[in-house]
């Protein structure tokens, strides 16, 4: 077979291009998986916060008037401050454009707070119901 000038170079570029395509697919898959793992960890953290806050309010409700306890939650989720809402037996934790919800047995007045100023809070039960305020 007669080899034309430049044939090796063409093959080289073809194979190099193919390798790059494989590498790009590989890195794409890896970064997608990695991003899923991070998202899942953030959602887990959100659920943990929701579960903890649900537990604190349920305990305050059950223990009755005069109950007061300080608790803390993580400062940020995925590097952002977040908001916690408890309403209609659902604890909602929202950060950035994401949120998670957890069920709670707490059925009192709606509660809302965020971690913009502090991550230490006090849950208390007084004459007016259960409240969460900055600790």
């Amino acid at each position, binding site marked *: 077979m007669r*080899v034309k000038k430049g044939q*090796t170079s063409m093959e080289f570029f073809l194979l190099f291009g193919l390798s790059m395509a*494989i590498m790009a697919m590989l890195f794409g898959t890896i970064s997608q998986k990695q991003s899923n793992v991070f998202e899942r960890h953030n959602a887990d953290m959100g659920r943990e916060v929701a*579960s903890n806050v649900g537990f604190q309010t349920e305990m305050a409700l*059950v223990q009755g008037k005069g109950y007061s306890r300080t608790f803390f939650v993580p400062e940020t989720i995925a590097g952002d401050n977040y908001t916690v809402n408890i309403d209609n037996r659902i604890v909602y934790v929202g950060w950035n454009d994401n949120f998670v919800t957890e069920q709670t047995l707490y059925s009192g007045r709606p509660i809302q707070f965020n971690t913009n100023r502090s991550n230490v809070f006090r849950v208390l039960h007084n004459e007016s119901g259960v409240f969460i305020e900055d600790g």
Partner: protein
Amino acid sequence: MDKGQAFISDFAVSVAVFSAIVTAFFIPWNSIIEADNRFSVEKDMRTEAERTAAFLVTTEGYPSDWEREGVNVTIPGFAQAENILSAEKIEEFTNISYQNQRSILRTQQFFIEITRNGETLTINGEQAEYGKNPQNSSYTPETSIVVTRQVIIDQTESPKPAEFKYVSWRD
């Protein structure tokens, strides 16, 4: 051999080696992620089970007189004082359907057993076993979390020290 042929076969070999390395990397990586997932589920279940057990043995529940007729329980608790369980509340709990018990305990499946020296206690004439025992051969639990607490059962005649076992499980 034509020019370029060696190059192609070299390339094929290198692709094969590369694929083997990538596969060898991906398989353990995937299994680490899956194990992490499983661990995360177990961790959540353990936290929930410990909180539920804490509610059951340290609080009266809400409302506090939920064992009375006509009062609906929102949050179950068997205690009349911390770690002293009311036989009346336990008895009332048995009158709630398993479906509702699961709902107020917020668990997929559960089993509660109260024992003394390894023997199941009798409370108000009945064996103190509630829910579904995951050790029963008809169930195939995938994950089960056991939480035990030392308690006293307040029965009118004689308060008895006992072990309260709460099992949260999923199939």
